[in-house]
């Protein structure tokens, strides 16, 4: 009954921090802003960790068979004998990179951090609807994350069957790693469920007076839809995880057909299971998941573009309707990940059709954002640079989805590097750019201090360059037919032909790793010595900017009332904008 313990909210003091000890203020806090920041820091740490795993893999990919002693020093002789990583360890890194980036990194950052910190402020609420539930969801996420990472240290290492964890491969894989993967997934899913319930209730119930649905900032809409996706798409994966756990610990064979022979050993199970059942349940989650990764990003970008073009968004309503439609459709396209599992004509056609349809709202959203630039007075500050960078990168990500969404062209491109390039363009220079933009945009609100513009730009340009240095070659390699998840592609003639791309990609990745240090440096310097800013440094219109920076416990000095649309920018007015809280000047 985790839904309960929220209501006697009054018994924890609203009268400022000093009422509560350090622990209740910063660790087991119920304040949505602190929880948001906790989510932010934790997920950034996980993101960086997952990225480091990839940097290690990139050595093996660029220089297969060449020892790198430092890896041996870090991971030990068993995982990296003689400085050359073992194939099974490579697979562990691959599986964990995917899992960490998605479930411990981008989702908690986009939904956990920004959803928690920004949504209550933008709807003019004093806090989330269920503060204790909010705290619970953070700590459940934290436990799940720790469990996931610690699985590296169990005998035979972490899960190594890809982030998709297809059985029966998982059944053949070492016991502990995969079992811990499944267990911590159950934690992470539970946490997301609690979080999404909280966000939905907050948006529906705690909107400030006058804040009608069509006066909500687009970001809030994005979070609302995302939360519904999490709420309804995650439970099936939870069920699937339970079924796979049963296969592992209780000897069932839900995903195991009869007559399996692992390395000469006939498996002593009842059999009669179906490996595709897992894929259905998994992708039923994992396709909506894609939109969980991208929608918050779109929301952030919309906010920042409106603010920095100094004019209203183009087609606000079409944005909202497209996002809703996107959410709905995302539940009926999942099997386009399964075209070549032997799918028949009719179903492949059905899913190809829905896939083509779902590309339309994405096009509408992208077009609306591009048209919003028209006639603006564009300020190129750091958040805006990342937001603008998002647009072409996401466009590439979306477009490269086309040949994968058509069954015929998917035959050649399926499970090649083309797929990797495609979804990384959506999530890395796509979602991540948007999330960087959001961090820069709301950092002054969270800390009350302005970051260093120069360092910000110094972070943006190399990141943009190296991102493409990493992911563009993937599309070429995929065209060449190189399979993904290969420990050493030079085992194949067509892999050898494309091997040199790996060198470019690896160096881009390593250099991009260095570039991120500038980002970290900037955030730290800002807290230490950043210029103090007022409530509204960006001259923005939405509600969060009418609260002090940083907002106190309880957020607003007096309960906000809303009188107008979210993006009321107008050069005729003073500073070219009016806040939503301003009554119509008579």
């Amino acid at each position: 009954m985790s839904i309960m313990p929220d209501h006697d909210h009054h018994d924890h003091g609203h009268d400022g921090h000093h009422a509560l000890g350090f622990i209740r203020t910063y660790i087991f806090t119920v304040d949505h802003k602190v929880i948001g920041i906790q989510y932010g820091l934790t997920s950034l740490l996980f993101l960086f960790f997952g990225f480091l795993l990839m940097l290690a893999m990139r050595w093996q990919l660029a220089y297969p068979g060449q020892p790198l002693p430092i890896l041996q020093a870090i991971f030990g002789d068993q995982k990296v004998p003689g400085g050359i990583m073992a194939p099974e360890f490579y697979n562990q890194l691959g599986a964990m990179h995917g899992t960490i980036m998605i479930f411990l990194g981008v989702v908690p950052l986009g939904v956990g951090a920004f959803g928690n910190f920004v949504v209550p402020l933008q709807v003019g609420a004093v806090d989330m609807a269920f503060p204790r539930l909010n705290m619970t969801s953070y700590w459940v996420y934290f436990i799940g994350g720790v469990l996931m990472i610690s699985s590296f240290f169990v005998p035979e290492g972490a899960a190594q069957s890809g982030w998709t964890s297809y059985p029966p491969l998982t059944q053949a894989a070492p016991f502990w790693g995969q079992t811990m993967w499944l267990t911590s997934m159950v934690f992470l899913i539970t946490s997301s469920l609690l979080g999404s319930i909280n966000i939905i209730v907050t948006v529906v119930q705690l909107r400030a007076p006058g804040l009608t649905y069509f006066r909500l900032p687009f970001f809030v809409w994005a979070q609302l839809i995302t939360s519904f996706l999490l709420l309804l798409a995650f439970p099936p994966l939870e069920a699937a995880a339970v079924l796979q756990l049963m296969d592992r610990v209780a000897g069932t064979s839900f995903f195991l057909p009869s007559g399996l022979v692992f390395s000469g050993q006939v498996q002593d199970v009842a059999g009669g299971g179906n490996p595709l059942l897992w894929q259905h349940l998994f992708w039923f989650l994992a396709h909506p998941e894609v939109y969980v990764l991208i929608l918050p990003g779109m929301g952030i970008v919309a906010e920042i573009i409106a603010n920095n073009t100094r004019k209203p968004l183009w087609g606000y309503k079409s944005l909202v309707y497209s996002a809703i439609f996107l959410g709905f459709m995302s539940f009926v396209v999942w099997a386009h990940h399964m075209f070549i599992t032997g799918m028949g004509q009719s179903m492949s056609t059905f899913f190809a059709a829905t896939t083509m349809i779902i590309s339309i709202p994405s096009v509408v959203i992208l077009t609306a954002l591009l048209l919003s630039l028209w006639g603006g007075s564009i300020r190129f500050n750091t958040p805006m640079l990342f937001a603008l960078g998002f647009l072409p990168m996401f466009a590439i990500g979306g477009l490269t989805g086309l040949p994968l969404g058509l069954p015929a062209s998917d035959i050649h491109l399926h499970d090649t590097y083309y797929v990797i390039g495609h979804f990384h363009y959506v999530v890395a220079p796509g979602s991540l750019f948007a999330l960087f933009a959001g961090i820069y945009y709301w950092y002054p609100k969270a800390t009350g201090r302005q970051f260093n513009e120069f360092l910000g730009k110094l972070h943006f340009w190399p990141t943009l360059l190296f991102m493409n240095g990493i992911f563009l070659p993937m599309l070429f390699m995929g065209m060449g037919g190189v399979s993904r998840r290969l420990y050493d592609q030079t085992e194949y003639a067509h892999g050898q032909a494309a091997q040199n791309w790996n060198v470019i990609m690896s160096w881009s990745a390593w250099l991009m790793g260095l570039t991120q240090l500038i980002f970290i440096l900037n955030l730290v310097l800002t807290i230490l010595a950043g210029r103090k800013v007022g409530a509204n440094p960006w001259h923005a219109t939405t509600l969060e900017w009418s609260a002090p920076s940083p907002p106190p416990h309880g957020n607003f000095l007096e309960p906000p009332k809303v009188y107008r649309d979210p993006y009321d920018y107008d050069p005729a007015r003073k500073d070219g904008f009016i806040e939503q809280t301003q009554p119509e000047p008579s």
Partner: protein
Amino acid sequence: MLAVGYKAWLPLNASQGGGAIDELIVIIHWFMAVLFIGWGAYFVWCLIKFRARPGHVATPELPKAKASKYCEVMVIVIEAILLLGFSIPIWAAMRGEGNGPKPDEALVVRVVAEQFAWNIHYPGRDGLFGRTDVSLVSKENPIGLDRSEPAAKDDLVTINQMHIPVNRDILVYLSSKDVIHNFGLPLLRVKQDIIPGMTIPVWFKATQTSNALRDQMVENYPLTGRAPMLLLKYHVAMEEYEDTDGTVIIAKGKVLTEDLVADLVAAGFETVRAAPRVPAEIACAQLCGLGHYRMRGYLTIDSAEDFEKWMVAEEAWLEDEEEDDEGY
């Protein structure tokens, strides 16, 4: 940095159905390019024209933007065409139920995948596959073929060696012993998951022999610089190389080994004309465990008579086997 030529596009195509897929991929990418360049041009132009600068203010009213409507409609129409006009027919031809070749007129082969090898099972002259049973599986008998059965007597089973005749329909029945594998033939544009517990058919027709393919894949490889063997393993020299006093270092068609490469370098050669020994490979395209990367099968596309020769040789070998067995 690129030691070998620009490898950013589709590999050679050696199958009948592959052409249509390539065509579709090319068309889609033109469509993508047009859209992206269109958007990009407008994007950059906006950034320049509407940049904040002294004396420039935003215009509050929003553009009517008929263009965007047209753009969206165009996208819908083109996607519909790609789906209905190209994808569905191709899929029907390559995957559609009942559209495959009839087993009696095609060469039927069973492929049984396992971690990490391809077991190729030919029915032999009688065209009948012998019964298989997991309880018979062993090192010598990886697919558990019941040799006591008449139908199984002439069955051929090879490991990682798949020979097919050119210009003939091939019908492959895919099955797996352990995990999900993927039967991928990049040069034939064939890719099909192999799901344990199911037998999935896939069919294709090769249009070029391996030799013809190899001749088109000849490249000049540098012998100096970063790890030349990385790109030269499993390659053969495509011309004869002699050292200064005329002794042959490596003959045409010989496999390039570490030592031979060293000899070539010693003899002062800086590059070697080489090509893959086996141009068409069976590549597992689905993560299947720690050996996934080396789950490589050799597909040899023979002319009809070469294929016949190979069959005869295999049968001879099979008979020796049986005599040996009786010998014990």
